[in-house]
Each structure stands twice: as structure tokens, then as C-alpha cells.
């Protein structure tokens, strides 16, 4: 269940300025990788390309034996990622729960509509996931009634309902109280134990240090430095890493 990104290139649709310039990553199954970098380093672009919201210009993504090549139109890009539909999930920074649906329905909508599952199958899986994430009593609640941490776990459960191989997180700690940050680490480890590969894009160095097996520091659309937290934070060779650590 590894994910391999090879020489990914992408320019901004409007300006044509390069956002990703030959970015490559290799993450083994079940690992937690943290992607760090200053604003504009290409983190959000990378996420949007991985989940198929944006098409990329060149390079490839390989997940679970399926390879997607860049270079098509927006529409072709979307069709290509449809092949990956469900294999890569994303937990949005603002969660983007569906406010008109209950917690349970948030988790069953996609499996029923996309996979054509029977409702009872989807609901059984959703209940199991919610139970695992400590939300067993919230299935009838609506998103407006949940705390920030609960919303995040519903968003995770919703993504997991599609049984993805890879789960991406956009700034998972930015909307949470500091007291909840440890809980994020615990959740990440629980999910890692099931063999799912996870990638968190974050500014939050303590969370990256605690939860990640692997660190990627992005700079100007490329990987500037990578390695285990000990390697990267212990020897910040690249100026971008040093700048992040110094908080500049």
C-alpha cells in the first residue's frame, strides 16, 4: 500500500508560475509521513493533485499498483483519479462535513452512491469506524452540534468509509485546541496500525516530530530534505529546514 510520486510538475493555471517542480516521494505502506514547508512551498498543490481536485502537468503517482500520469486536461485528470477514487482520501483543514446530513449519513453517502453498496453494509462499517474513533454515541448528531475535535474524527471516519489505501490530512491541528493535539497523534497511530499510509501536511513541527515516521521538507516545489524526524530535525542541512525550525 505504498505511495510513490515521481517527478511531479505542476504550474498555476492562472499565472503559469511553477508550483511543483519535479517533486518525488516514496512512502511505504502503513507509514505516517509529514510534509512541512513554508506557505507557497507547494504543500496544498501537492494535496489537491493527489486527490484529483487538480490535474498535474508531468510525472506520475502510483498507489497500490495503479499509476496515474500527468499531462491531461482538468477533466481527464479527474477521470484518471476516478480510477483512484476511494484509494486516496483527504481530511480537509475545515473538515467540510455535509451540514445537512447526520454523522452516520456523512459516512455512508459516498459508499452508497459511488460503490453502490447496500445501505446496511455502509451503515455497519460506518458504525464500526465511529466506534473506533470514539464517536459511537454521535451517529444521529448533525455536524453543527459537534466540537472541533469530534468534527475532525467524523471527517476521518467519512474518508475511511471509502476504505482508502492512503489518507491525507491538510493542517490537521490548525483548527484544534492545543489540548487536542495529542489526540491527533493517537488517532494517526491507530489508523497506521491498519496498514493505511498517511500523509499530513502541516506547519506544526511538534506534531510532525511525535507522529511521523518520515519527514519531507518542501521548498519551491521540490523536496528539499527528507528522512526520519531524528535525521531531519537533528541535522537541518537545508536552509529551508533550518528556517522552519527557527520559526522564521
Amino acid at each position: 500500500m505504498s505511495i510513490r510520486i515521481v517527478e511531479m510538475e505542476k504550474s498555476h493555471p492562472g499565472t503559469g508560475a511553477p508550483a511543483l517542480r519535479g517533486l518525488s516521494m516514496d512512502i511505504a505502506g502503513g507509514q505516517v509521513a509529514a510534509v512541512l514547508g513554508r506557505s507557497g512551498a507547494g504543500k496544498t498543490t501537492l494535496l489537491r493533485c493527489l486527490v484529483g481536485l487538480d490535474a498535474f502537468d508531468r510525472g506520475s503517482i502510483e498507489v497500490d499498483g495503479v499509476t496515474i500520469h500527468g499531462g491531461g486536461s482538468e477533466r481527464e485528470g479527474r477521470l484518471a483519479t476516478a480510477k483512484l477514487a476511494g484509494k486516496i482520501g483527504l481530511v480537509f483543514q475545515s473538515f467540510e462535513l455535509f451540514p445537512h446530513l447526520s454523522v452516520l449519513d456523512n459516512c455512508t453517502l459516498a459508499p452508497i452512491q459511488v460503490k453502490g453498496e447496500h445501505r446496511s453494509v455502509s451503515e455497519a462499517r460506518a458504525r464500526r469506524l465511529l466506534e473506533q474513533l470514539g464517536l459511537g454515541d454521535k451517529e444521529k448528531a448533525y455536524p453543527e452540534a459537534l466540537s472541533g475535535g469530534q468534527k475532525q474524527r467524523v471527517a476521518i471516519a467519512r474518508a475511511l468509509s471509502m476504505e482508502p489505501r492512503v489518507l491525507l490530512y491538510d493542517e490537521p491541528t490548525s483548527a484544534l485546541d492545543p489540548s487536542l493535539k495529542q489526540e491527533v497523534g493517537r488517532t494517526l497511530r491507530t489508523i497506521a496500525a491498519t496498514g493505511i499510509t498517511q500523509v499530513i501536511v502541516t506547519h506544526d513541527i511538534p506534531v510532525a516530530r511525535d507522529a511521523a515516521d518520515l519527514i519531507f521538507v518542501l521548498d519551491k516545489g521540490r523536496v528539499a530534505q527528507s528522512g526520519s524526524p531524528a535525521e531531519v530535525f537533528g541535522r537541518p542541512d537545508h536552509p529551508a529546514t533550518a528556517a522552519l525550525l527557527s520559526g522564521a
Partner: protein
Amino acid sequence: MKMWLKAGVLLLFLQLLAATARATPAEGAPPGVPGAMRAIHDKGEMRWGGDSQGGAPYVFQDPMDPNHLIGFEVDLAEALAKRLSARARPVQGQWDGLLELLARGDFEVALNGIEIADEKRRICELSRPYYAAAEKLTVRRGDASAPRSLEAVKGRRVGTLPGSLAARILERAGAEVKTYDGGQNDIYDDLRIGRTDAVLLDDPITRYYGAIDPALEVVPGSFGEIAYGVALRKGDVEATAAVDRALGELAADGTLARLYARWGLWNDETAKLLGGAAPASDVTPDAYDAWRAAVGKPLPFWTRVRERYPATLPVFARGAAMTLAISLASMALAVALGLVVALGRAYGPWPVKWLATGYIELFRGTPLLIQLTMVYFGLPELGLTLHPFVAGWLALGLNYAAAEAENYRAGLSSVPAGQLDAARTLGLTTWQALRHVVGPQAARVAIPPATNDFIALLKDSSLVSVVTLTELTKSYVNLASSMRDHLGLGALVALFYLLLSLPFARFARWVEGRMGQHLRRAA
């Protein structure tokens, strides 16, 4: 009386259309409309166009029982139809649009105080005159400064009907002319309360609205002479000759004289016109007396409520049914078409976006009346003659579709872009995302204004009266004119409109409450 066509939007647009698409040059009749005599013969029925809003004594609702049309022209049309071996069937049409409706083929003849004038012969045929009358000046009784001669009206405010011979006489005399689109009683009401200093109108109107008011006084003498004729489709020489012949027979056998005498309309001008055949001495003006008895003295409010209003209820109910039917049908079209336009604008490829935007701007930015006029009167020139209900439905539906599309757009844009992204990352197609994620959230924003639009549509549907449909507003205007009662009947018609709109207002609040339950975004 109220003569020659008002130079309004109707005519203007017809001429514009005719200039661009002259498929049927001078003939006037759209392709496929048969000669009037053939239509009358085939159906055994002569459809004649008139406007009951015009009021007494021409064509109007019986003030004692508004379910019946009466008037000297109703009697005349029946006598004329009998001569042509057919039944007479009245067709309601806005007075200043009668000649267009005639050309369109909505009826075989127009018979409603149509002045014989040369400029009219360009667009229709006119029969020999069937009635002649003087123009009469009416002033306030005892008003020492009132204008009592043509010289004296210079610079004074004088009321009359738009486009009439009286209006032209007044303009030539330098009067400040005030014209009215409503019923004749409005014109005399304004004189009585001092908004005008005099009224100049055809003798029949003066007799029925001016002379019966004790506060008013008719100045003796004639200020001009007018003759009425039957209008037929341009080029239909056969039917014109047949109508001329029939009118000649009716004049010769004394039918016309008797008819005018019953309505209290016999006069020297008509006597001369008909060759001096006076009505028999035993004919009493019973029809005129009945009118005087019915409306001469205003009844106290509660008496009207008890004795007069019950008979108006069926008229209002029929009008309300038409209003509701055309509004519901139009709204259904607007909701469906609006959705297509809004989705095309939001998610379509650029030509579709461009078309949808153009559609919205075109239909929002031009008056509904013009759209309706073009559909009803304009399309027949291109060979497409629509039923009045279909034309009204189409015009209202197309117009409101633009408004609904804008509502949906507001609804769609109220849903954060992240919702669509989230649905897509879960693998939903755009269509699935619209149906299950974006749509339900957008509906909450779009439905309350859509309900408001429906209530606005209920009221805008009154415009379909220009395409001969008698809905609630037209029913009221006609009744108010024939019963000379604006306030009481106005309250009654307001009640009918509220009965129609209140359930929808309540429905809107219910839907809003239901849909809003879980949609406050806390994230």
C-alpha cells in the same frame, strides 16, 4: 368613443416585427386564418371582439347580475349574427388591442365603439356606420368658471379616452388633455372631485356616466361627430360586404332604431344615418332605465354587500381559477427551466454559460408586457399562432425562469466550494455531488425567494388580460366599471388575491423551517 388605437407598445412592437418579418404583407391576417364568412358558416358562430371594461352602454356586465354581458352592442351583435345565420359569441379583448386580436384571428369581427377613420383602413376593413353620435362636453354643475365652448377649453384640464376623436379635438383646441385607461366612470369621478375641469366624450358615454350624475351638467350642443363601424380583417372584402348588407337590412326593418331607443341612444345623427326611420312610438328606453335604477344612486355599503356582491362571486371565482391555473403552470415551467439555466451557467462549458447568462439578462431586463405581446401578437406573423393560455403560460414561464435561475445561482454560490471538493474526493461525480451535497444546501437559500416570486407571479399574471384571458384583476376592473363601485369590489378582489397567496406564504415559512434545521454552519 375611445377611438383609434393608442400608440402603445402593442402597435409599436407589431410594426417592428412586421418590418423585420413581412411574411404576410398588407393582408393583416396571419397565414392560415380563413375568411370570416367561411369561419362563421363552418362553426355556425360569429365570434365578435369587445372589451367589457369599456362599460355601458356598449358591452358590459349586467350590474344586477355580472355573470351576463349586456349592452347595445351585445344586442347589435346578436341581431347581426342572426342575419348571417349564426350565433353571436362575445370574445373578451383589451379595447386598444382589438384590431390586433382581429388580425390574429381571435374573432371574426371587432364590434365595440370602433370609430370609422381613414387611418384605420390600413390595418382592417370597416363596415358602413351603424351608429352616429355627437361629442358632448360635461362640466361640474354650478361651476361658474367651467369651460362651456371649444374656445374656452384652451389651457384647461379636460378628461377623455386615449386615442379618441374627442382627444384629437381637445388637442387641436389647445386643452390640457388627461386620458384614462380604466373605465369611463373614472373620468367623470375625476371631474366631480375637481381633478379636471371638463370631460369631452361620445354622446352614449355622456348619457350613461355624465348625465346621470346630479353633480354634473352636460353642455348643450355638439363638439364634433363620430360614427361607429364593424371592423373586419384587412382584405376580407366578402365578409365586409356581407356585414354591410346585414346592417342595411337591420336599418331598413327598424331593428336598429328599436335597439337604440331601448338603450336611450336614439339621436338626430343616427336618424340621419339610418335614413330617418324613427323608432316606433311604443318602444320605451327600458334598458337605459334599468341601468339608471342599478347604478344611478350609489347604494349604501352593506346593501351592496347583501344584494349585489353575492352575484359577483362566481365572476371572481372564475377569475381566480384562471389566475391560479396560469400561475401554477407558469411557475412549474419557471422552476424547471430556471434550474437548467442556472446549472448551465454554473457548470456548463463556456458557450452554454454564455447562452444562459444572455437568457437571464434578456428576460430580466425587458418588460414582461413586451415579451407577452411578442409571443401573442408577434409569433403569428411568423406563422405560429398560440392559444391565449399557452401564450400567457409561455411568456410568464420564460420570464420567471430567469428570476428562478438567479435564485438557484444565489443558492449554489452560498454553498462553500469546499463542499464540492469534499464530495469529489470521496469519489462522487459532479452530478452526484450536486444532487446529494450542494443541491440540498442551495435549496434552503433558493426556496424562500422562489416562493416570493410565485406570489409576485400571481400578481403579474394580471398581464395576461391583454391576450384575452379574463383573470382576477380583469374581472375586478370589468365589474368595477359596470357596477360603478371601485372600493367595495376592490376589497373583495383583494380578499381573493390573499386567499390565493397566503397558503403559499405559509408554505414558504414551513419549508424554510424544515430545511433550515441542520444547516447552520458551525465549522
